[in-house]
């Protein structure tokens, strides 16, 4: 696995360097890097210059009131929205655009469907409303992308899907349709579905916000387990307890900007009044 990733992330100027250097590079290249990210929907300026660095193997929790742009930021990373300004790099590679020569100048060109799909393959995403495919069983949901995107054999994909569903504790729910599962179970299937594509980074967009309170725990425990396994994660959530316990980095966003960021200790010792105010309302 390591040499695969190493060659993937190596920059052109570093291809001649030795493997040792490449491994070092792997550690120093951020998994996700946002530089001055702006996003506007029509006249609505949602993100106003977001900078963020997420290192491989770390968990970043983004907190903030609704409308602060945190979900939009997550969707930008996965190219479900298009950047208006700034740059996002995933594994050191600029996403969504490529640099081309045009009339003697270096300009950006929007990537096509295929290129975007390739970039997305590094990312797994879990949605607030699960978005499971309702016409497929849990097993079929998880098998879908390995079979039709990675062209994996059916039996191999089935094995993989069973393993992923077991990993989230749903090995006995393989043949259930989403409508026959509870919200917590559906979200765990959604996590298994994303994991089956072997992403390097997992994005969670308010994964527990649509759940009944008693079902939140089972989803968080799966996420905690994933973090323990060293998965790089960016989590937008309102679960302060989860942030305090699992996060390596906590980012507080409000009004389209990062108001405060730091280690999980900032939750208990916030310095910005807006963050303090937010925590008081949430806790």
């Amino acid at each position, binding site marked *: 696995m390591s040499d695969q990733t190493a060659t993937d992330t190596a920059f052109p100027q570093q291809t001649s360097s030795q493997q040792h250097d490449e491994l070092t590079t792997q550690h120093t290249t951020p998994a996700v890097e946002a530089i001055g990210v702006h996003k506007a929907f029509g006249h609505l300026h949602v993100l106003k210059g977001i900078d963020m660095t997420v290192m491989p193997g770390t968990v970043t929790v983004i907190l903030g009131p609704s409308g602060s742009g945190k979900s939009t930021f997550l969707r930008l990373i996965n190219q479900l929205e298009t950047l208006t300004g700034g740059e996002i790099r995933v594994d050191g590679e600029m996403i969504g655009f490529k640099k081309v020569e045009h009339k003697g100048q270096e300009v950006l060109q929007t990537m096509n469907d295929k290129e975007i799909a390739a970039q997305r393959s590094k990312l797994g995403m879990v*949605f607030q409303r699960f978005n499971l495919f309702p016409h497929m069983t849990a097993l079929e949901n998880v098998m879908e992308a390995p079979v*039709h995107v990675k062209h994996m054999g059916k039996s191999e994909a089935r094995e993989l899907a069973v393993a992923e569903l077991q990993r989230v504790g749903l090995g006995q729910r393989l043949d259930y349709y989403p409508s026959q599962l509870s919200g917590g179970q559906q979200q765990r299937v959604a996590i298994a579905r994303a994991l089956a594509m072997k992403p390097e980074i997992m994005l969670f967009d308010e994964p527990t916000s649509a759940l009944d309170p008693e079902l939140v725990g089972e989803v968080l425990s799966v996420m905690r387990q994933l973090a323990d396994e060293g998965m790089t994660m960016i989590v937008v959530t309102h679960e302060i307890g989860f942030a305090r316990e699992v996060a390596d980095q906590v980012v507080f966003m409000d009004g389209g900007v990062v108001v405060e960021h730091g280690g999980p200790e900032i939750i208990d010792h916030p310095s910005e009044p807006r963050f303090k105010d937010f925590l008081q309302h949430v806790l």
Partner: protein
Amino acid sequence: MAKKQVDGEGLDIPDRIHALPVKRTGPVVAAVIVALLAAMLVQGLVTNPRFEWNIVWKYLFNENVLEGIGYTLLLTVISMVVAIILSVILAIMRKSINPVLRGVSWFFIWFFRGTPVYTQLVFWGLFSVLVPKLSLGIPFTSVTFWSIDSSTIITAFNAAWIGLALNEAAYLSEIVRAGLEAVDPGQTEAAKALGMKRSLIMRRIILPQAMRIIIPPTGNETIGMLKTTSLVLAVPFTLELQFATNAIANRIYKPIPLLLVACIWYLLITSILMVIQSRLEKHFGKGFEARSIVAEDNGDQQLDGPVAVSETKKDRIARGNNVKMIGLNA
């Protein structure tokens, strides 16, 4: 319907309530009135000599009538199959990111929905007069590689189904589009996030879910088409059921009994189509109606628990789904 299920059957429920149902007179009154009207109708139908049932029976299985049914069915099936394929293509084109394809689809629908099907059929009938030769070559030059008389391709039968199919495709494509648009956009997002490309998302995720919405109105359109086939006399194509019965009626001066013959067959075929439709609805409804009436065992598996799904559980799900389906159908 099957035996009525009693809630909590076999369970130990103390002080189980055995109450008499609410007294409802409405159904009884309605039943009496309906039964009376039905009896009058049947009596009228049977005893009225003008219906001439003996003629009806005589011609019900007449060779020309049976041939007419064959052609009516054939026209319905061919034109609906072609129309469905075309309509899906048109609907996907309509939602394409390619503006040229969107425009072509819009124009097709505008034209074929905007002119009467009868007129279109007349034009298809006249096709070989208007365009005597079909040829393959370089446009705007005299170079041709291959050519053929239109009349050998656009026969009356072909003109009939082409005309019906193109008109129907325009209507159906709007139904398909509505179906595609009814699928939650979150489905597309989830599929994109899994690295699926637009065409794959359409084929694997959106269309199967849209089918559930598309099928009932398409069934409706198919039944409509069954009867619209009678318009192909505009081509003129004269072998379908309506024309066949009409021809006999004109020959023997007995229009009423032969209209009854046609009605009986149309009703019979419609009934069969309805059965097919409900089967299709069931097939494409899977996963949607499967509410958790079987999720009584909340023995949720522990993390790292065993994998095997016991047969009995699987059976129970299947049975549960089945029960639900029957319930919906009743």
